[in-house]
Every structure is written in structure tokens, then in C-alpha cells.
């Protein structure tokens, strides 16, 4: 393969190297020059984690063939703080706490630098516009915009340089104080290494063969042709598991790689480690798998019907977990009610979409300790599970938590660390696996899609007499966190309300969909969405203010939870009051207001989104000239 000769200036230094013709500038910077501050978040030009300057112009390096960089001047995030001093913008990001997981931050700092270079006086709207190509999943952007405005004002002399310094706080006082994040300098400078940024000498690259079928028997896997390929150092399947093959946060129902059958599209079937990524990808296409498709089920209600396809032998009814709560006499409560309202609520699967796709390194160290470096949100549990899977004492298993580039619950599952361990043990070489964005979306856990039927009985004065809540969730093909999610959904679902008579049932059901798992709020979102929406509907029917109906029923100091735990103090009323004040809520039942409402616009309410702030700036400039 003829290589490209790339001569360029990178961060002020001359670089002359050969590159592979298919490489993107991103690959060249990260793999060849080890400038890993430039991140790979999507590979499709959507996220901006890879933004760099090429000849002074900000570009997305994931969409730039390296051949285009020939002869250019490139500036990466590492170039901004070259002498070890953070740039003005980097200091401002540190000051305002603009970095959270940090994975988007190098790109964000680059985009902010480009924005202030293009217009040193850009206002907040223009800043938003110019940063539009960069996505952050943690911050909600406000602190990032604050940082750009702060840097702008210091740069323009409108604020003194001391505005970037740490705010003085009383010794030892942290709560309520504006404390700077200790890890921010490493994030804003791009110095922090995430798992996908790490390399080890003699490292292999791993790729995973995944199921194209939602439900099928694996009749045969033939890896011989892949194993025979030059550059391929190892191929693993479930046959390589020496111990008890199973993981999951509650029930260990998922094998490291499919064993006997596949249960969802995207399930790992085999993995290859090779000297380079392209060889590993080519080897995947040489693995022959003979499947016998089975009928599949994609709806949890269908899966609960008699005769439905069964996913796991241990659960012939396809129920992963049922959590019931019983309190008081629900039917008597409904009989006493003046109003009974029943309504169905649905929520959909949601992807966590952390900016850092899953990645990990596995190796066996000099003492024979199988070591996994990954952004796992649950390393201790993973360590215990892996010890059983690879049949080694716990002292021979080590997990190192790399910086998590966003998790939100999505990195609690041990869905690839087992493969890294097996491959490192088989090849005796360090192995790295980096998911693509598509892989991350296709195979990792989602928020449980849910259907809730809620029946609530109330007296005319708004007092709740009884609640019956039933939620059925699509748990997907494996258990993962489903049991815990069902527990939280059941315990918290009826909300912080004093309900004398309560019946709650939550069901997590196996289907042949992508597994559902942990996601911020962990089940409470689904049931509370139903409960809170329901209270609004009931308020409307009873002619009550939505805040009022909540106050009437709120748990107060000394209340008992739905599972009969006594609460000494309850802050709900204070929270309600703050929300009411903060939203400038106009009192009254939902039916009493219409066009006359005044709390839907004005201060604190976001204007509809538009673009073109820079035209206004241009016009001002022209007028000034």
C-alpha cells in the first residue's frame, strides 16, 4: 500500500511522516503523533470532540482525510497551553466549572477559541451559535457559555485578570461555596487520558463480531480462517471462558459472549485481536457463524402471554423481576373517592449518549494479575464477577477505573471487560477495544421503555384516597440493572405524597430488544412521569391549582413512605415553594387560564431558538464603520 508523505506544522513544530492513505487527520494526530487531547466522539462530524485548527480555521478532524492536511499548519488543544500555562479560555473554563466529564471539553475549548478569534466581542447568542457544532452531554452548556463570556471580558479589559482567580472561601468550608474543580486543568488542556487514549507497548487492537439476529440458536462458529490470517493474534468465543460464564448487576444471566444462542441484535458472538484495527476488522468477516433463527418477541406485553418465545430457561414467563407494594385497602379507598381517574402513560427507550464511547485496555501483568482499565462505573462488582468468569482468585483480578467520559448509568454494565480479560489471557499481550459511536448506541443498555396504568381516587378537596399503579417495562434481552430499576420505580413511583391506600406493581420483562439498564433516576422517572402528569389531570378535573393539589397531599415531617419507613423531616414543601416561585407560576386551576397567562414569557423564559446573531453584529460593525 503506497503511503502518503505528510509534511505539516503541528503546534509550531515541523512534522514529516508517512501516513496510511485512508487515515483521517484525527487518526494521524491521535495514533501517530499521540496528541490524544483531540477526541473521537462520533466519527461523523456531529459532536466536535475532534475540533482542531487547520491553517487557522477550525475543522472537524474526523471528517478530514489526512491527505488534505498536507502542507498545512495544525493547532490542537495541546498547542493552546504549550508552555504549560493555560490559555485565557482554559483558565476561564476552570474558573466557571465548565468541565464535568471533560470529554467534550478540548473540542469545546477549541471552538470557544475560534469564536473569540472570529469576534472578540461576540455576545452570548453569537457564542452559542459559533459553538453550535460541539456537543456536551453533562453541563447543559451554561457554564461553558459563562466561561467564554468571562474570557472575552478579561481579554477586552472589561474585567480584571483577577476575575479568573479562585474565589476566596473560608477555610474548610465547601458546602455553599464556589470551589474550583481539582481535575479541571487536566481536562481543559487535553492532558487527561481516557481509556481510548491509552496505549501500551506491543498492544493489540480488538474488534467484536456481533449478532445480526434478535433471537437465534448458534449451531456452529468456525474461526479457523480468521485465526490463520497474518496479523491476527487471537480469536475468542464463549469456549474460551474457563469459569462461570455470567454477568449482570443483579442476576448473572449474560454470558461474556453469546453461549448457545443470541438474544438481541448486536450481542457479542466472538472477538478478534490483531496487530492493527483494519486487520482485526477484516478477520471478523472471516468468522463463519451458522445461526438457526428463532421466533423473537419485541413487546413486553406479548412476551408475558402464554406461548411467547422464551429467552432464558430460568424465567419461562419472561419476567425478569416483579416488585409489588401493598398498603391499606385500595378498593375501599376508591369507593370513598369523589373522583377516580385512570390513564395510561408511556415512555421510550433513551440512549445515554455520553461523549466518550466505551473503551478499555486489558493486560496480564508480571504477577499474572489480569488487569482491566476501563471507564466502568462499578469496578468492585466487576472485579468479583470477572474473578468467577475467568476462574482466578480475586487477588489475581484488578480493575482500574479510567476517567469516565460521561456515564449516566450506562457504564455500569460489564459488557466488554470480560472479552478484554479473555483476550489478554489468550494472547498474553495488552489488548485495547474502542467502541464506535454506532456500536455504543446499538449494543449498550438503554433507559427502560415503560407503559404505566395509573388509577387514582381523590376526594373533592383534592385528598388522594387510593392509588393503583402498574408498570410494565421492556427489559430487553438481559437483566443488567432491571431488578434495581423495578425496585426504585416501585418504591418512588407514587411520589412524595401521603397515600393511605396503595397498590404498586412493576414488572421488568425479557424481550429480544437491546437490554435496558441503569439510567439517571433509575426507574423513578418512568413511574413519576405518570404520577405527576396524573396529578395535573386530576387538578384540572377538580378545579384546583396544580401546586395546591400537591401541597394538599405532600408528605410532611413524620410521614411514612409507601414502604412504611418513618421520615423525620421532609423537604418537599420547600422544594415545591421554590419551584413555584422560580417559575413565576400564576395561581389557578389549569382550566382557568388561557391566552392571558403571563408566566410563559418574559424574564427567565428562553426565547425561541434562532440563528443569525452574527448578522446583527455585522450590521452594528458596518454602522460603526
Amino acid at each position, binding site marked *: 500500500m*503506497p503511503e502518503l508523505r505528510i509534511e505539516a506544522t503541528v503546534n509550531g513544530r515541523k512534522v514529516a511522516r508517512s501516513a496510511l*492513505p485512508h487515515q483521517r487527520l484525527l487518526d494521524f494526530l491521535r495514533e501517530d503523533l499521540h496528541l490524544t487531547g483531540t477526541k473521537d466522539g462520533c466519527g*461523523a462530524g456531529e459532536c466536535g470532540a475532534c475540533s482542531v485548527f487547520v491553517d487557522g480555521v477550525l475543522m472537524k478532524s474526523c*471528517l*478530514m*482525510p489526512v*491527505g488534505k492536511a498536507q502542507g498545512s499548519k495544525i493547532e490542537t488543544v495541546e498547542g493552546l497551553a504549550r508552555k504549560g500555562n493555560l490559555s485565557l479560555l482554559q483558565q476561564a473554563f476552570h474558573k466557571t466549572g465548565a468541565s464535568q466529564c471533560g470529554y467534550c471539553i478540548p473540542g469545546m475549548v477549541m471552538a470557544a477559541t475560534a469564536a473569540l478569534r472570529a469576534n472578540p466581542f461576540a455576545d452570548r447568542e453569537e457564542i452559542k*451559535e459559533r459553538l453550535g*457544532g460541539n456537543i456536551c452531554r453533562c453541563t447543559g452548556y451554561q457554564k461553558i457559555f459563562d466561561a467564554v463570556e468571562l474570557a472575552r471580558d478579561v481579554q477586552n479589559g472589561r474585567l480584571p485578570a483577577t476575575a479568573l482567580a479562585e474565589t476566596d472561601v473560608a477555610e474548610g468550608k465547601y458546602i455553599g461555596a464556589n470551589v474550583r474543580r481539582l481535575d479541571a486543568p487536566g481536562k481543559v488542556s487535553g492532558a487527561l487520558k481516557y481509556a481510548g487514549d491509552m496505549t501500551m507497548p506491543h498492544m493489540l487492537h480488538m474488534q467484536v463480531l456481533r449478532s445480526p439476529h434478535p433471537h437465534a440458536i448458534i449451531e456452529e462458529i468456525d474461526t479457523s480462517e480468521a485465526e490463520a490470517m497474518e496479523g491476527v493474534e487471537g480469536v475468542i468465543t464463549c469456549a474460551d471462558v474457563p469459569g462461570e460464564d455470567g454477568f449482570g448487576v443483579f442476576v448473572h444471566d449474560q454470558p461474556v459472549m453469546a453461549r448457545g444462542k443470541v438474544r438481541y441484535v448486536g450481542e457479542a458472538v466472538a472477538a478478534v485481536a490483531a496487530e492493527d484495527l483494519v486487520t482485526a476488522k477484516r478477520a471478523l468477516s472471516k468468522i463463519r457463524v451458522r445461526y438457526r433463527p428463532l421466533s423473537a418477541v419485541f413487546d413486553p406485553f406479548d412476551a408475558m402471554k402464554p406461548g411467547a418465545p422464551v429467552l432464558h430457561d430460568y424465567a419461562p414467563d419472561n419476567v425478569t423481576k416483579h416488585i409489588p407494594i401493598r398498603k391499606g385497602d385500595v378498593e375501599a379507598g376508591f369507593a370513598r373517592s369523589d373522583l377516580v381517574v385512570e390513564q395510561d402513560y408511556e415512555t421510550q427507550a433513551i440512549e445515554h449518549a455520553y461523549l466518550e464511547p466505551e473503551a478499555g485496555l486489558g493486560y496480564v501483568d508480571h504477577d499474572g494479575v489480569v488487569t482491566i482499565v476501563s471507564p466502568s462505573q462499578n469496578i468492585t462488582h466487576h472485579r468479583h464477577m470477572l474473578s468467577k468468569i475467568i476462574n482466578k482468585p480475586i487477588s489475581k483480578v484488578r480493575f482500574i477505573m479510567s476517567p469516565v467520559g460521561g456515564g449516566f448509568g450506562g457504564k455500569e454494565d460489564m459488557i466488554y471487560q470480560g472479552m478484554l480479560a479473555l483476550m489478554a489471557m489468550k494472547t498474553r499481550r495488552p489488548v485495547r477495544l474502542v467502541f464506535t459511536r454506532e456500536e455504543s448506541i446499538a449494543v449498550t443498555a438503554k433507559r427502560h421503555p415503560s407503559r404505566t396504568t395509573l388509577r387514582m381516587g381523590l376526594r373533592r378537596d383534592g385528598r388522594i384516597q387510593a392509588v393503583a399503579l402498574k408498570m410494565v417495562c421492556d427489559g430487553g434481552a438481559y437483566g443488567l440493572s432491571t431488578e434495581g430499576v423495578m425496585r426504585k420505580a416501585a418504591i418512588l413511583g407514587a411520589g412524595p405524597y401521603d397515600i393511605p391506600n396503595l397498590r404498586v406493581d412493576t414488572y421488568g420483562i425479557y424481550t429480544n430488544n437491546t437490554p435496558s439498564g441503569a439510567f439517571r433516576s433509575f426507574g423513578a422517572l418512568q413511574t413519576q412521569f405518570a404520577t405527576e402528569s396524573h396529578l395535573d389531570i386530576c387538578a384540572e378535573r377538580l378545579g384546583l391549582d396544580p401546586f395546591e393539589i400537591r401541597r394538599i397531599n405532600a408528605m410532611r415531617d413524620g410521614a411514612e413512605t409507601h414502604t412504611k419507613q418513618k421520615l423525620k423531616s421532609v423537604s418537599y414543601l420547600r422544594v415545591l415553594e421554590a419551584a413555584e416561585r422560580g417559575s413565576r407560576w400564576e395561581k389557578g386551576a389549569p382550566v382557568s387560564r388561557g391566552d392571558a397567562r403571563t408566566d410563559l414569557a418574559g424574564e427567565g423564559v428562553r426565547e425561541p431558538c434562532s440563528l443569525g446573531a452574527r448578522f446583527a453584529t455585522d450590521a452594528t460593525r458596518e454602522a460603526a464603520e
Partner: protein
Amino acid sequence: MLLCDEYLTPTTLDEAFYLIDAHRGGYRLVAGATDLLPWAREGRAGDVHIPVLIDIARIPELRERIVDDTRVRLGAATPIQRFLDDPALGRAMPAMPRCAVWFADDQLRESATIGGNIVNASPAADGTPPLFAHGAVVKLGRRRNGRIETRRLPIQDFVTGPGKTALADDEILIAIDCEPLPGYGGSFEKVGHRRSLVISTVCLAALVKLDASGRNFEDVRLCIGGIGPVPVRMTDVERFLLSGPIAASRLEQAAEMPVGLVRSRTRQDYRRDVVRGFMMRGLFNAVQRAGAGPDVLTPEMEAACA
């Protein structure tokens, strides 16, 4: 993942055609690469191996940009961002800066080219509706018996369907000639899921010129995209608007006219509502930018068009 054995960067048209000849059947042209690389990923084309990529973005004819009162010539490799930062281009093509500001994001606009947008022929392309309104003509070139032959096609004859154009196998889109429309008011309306990096659900380009009184149209050019396989120039609506003064009732009538054009594959009802709203807003903005005062564009009209 996109794999290739060679990445070639010709610097003349001659060299490019030589490479096309030499690698017939095994090459693909690259300009900005912003559609090519995302295409070669899982869920779309997957892993793709193209033996030779020929990057034509450095060829002078494709980088040419001539803007004066009589013509606008855009080399096919003109980055979209130039519509925002070249004031002369913005004056000659008054809807284009508004189109460009909604196009992808600041960074992709530096890579993405106007020629790539045309050749890609996406029904949701943002760049083509304004070009239809400018009566654009594309210049295509190929080499026959050692000589470069060129032909010209009106853009509506060039873009023939989703992903389909009249570009022949060995041809290169070299340049686009557009009618300059200085003094026109231009607007571009677009709806999508967020403000940057979004593919249009519907988009509309409007260019209008007012007569001396500022109360009548002297010229109207309207083109809509995203509602069918190719952009549609709405000549009947243009004729209707030219036939009477600028008035709220007439704008409303005009806004109703293209609703029946919607024949996209999905979300037809939604698109019909959008089209109606876009027509009102797009015409209002264009008329305002063409210089109409508050006596013509009354506050009531503004409220109706917001």
C-alpha cells in the same frame, strides 16, 4: 470505516482527468469529504473499500470565485462558509448567507463544498433551493480523446432525484454560474431538530425585488426543498405575487398555494403546516430585507408572519 489504497490530490483539471482514466471503475471523487466519511460507517454503507480517492478540492478551476454585477461563478469546491464571510458574494446572492448560517456548523461549512451539496442530491439539501432561485447553471467537464469537453445544464435538469444527478461516470462538476441578484431581499427558512448540525425537514429560499414605490413586487423567486425528491421552484406562486400589491391577504393566499406540493415519504401533515408558516415568514423577511417600510409591513402582518 472508509478504506482506500491511494489518496491522490491532483492540482490541475488535466491531472484529475488523467487519474480518472487511469483508475476507471476503481475511484471516487472527493471534495469536502463531509458526506463521504459518515457514509462509510455502520448502519449506512459500513466498511467500504475504494481503491483510489481523487481529491479535486485543490484544482484552481474548482476553487475559482468570480463575483460582479453581471455574473457569479462559483468553483464547485467553494466551501459553504464563503457565503457568510465574502460580503460581495452575500450581496450578489442575498439568501445564501441565511442559508449558510443554518448549514451544518461553522466547522463543517469550512470543509463542505457547494458542488458536493449539489452532486450529493439529497432531497433535504440546504444549498440547492437558493441555487434554483438564482437560475443556476452547472458546468460539467470530461476528457475525450485527450481534450477537455465541457457542457452546461440548468440545475433543475442536473438534479434528477434523491441521490441522482445527470453527472456522467467520468465527469467532474467544475463550476456553478448563478444570476447575481443584488438589491434583492433574501431569506432562508429551515426547520429541523436543533439549530446546528441538523438536516432540514423543510427549507425555503425566497428572493424578492420591490418596485420604486416599495408596495409591489418587481421580481419574486421562491424555491422549496425537503418536501419531495428534488427542490421545487414555485413559478405559479411567483406569478401570483407579481400580479398584485404586497398585502397580508395576498401573502396568506400565496402561502396556501404550495401546500399541495408536499409529497415527501413521511410526516406529510406536519410538512404542510410548516410550508404554510414558512411561506409567510420567508416572504415577510425577504420583503423587509428588500427595503419595505412599516407602511407596507404593518405590525399586524409581522405578527401573522412571526
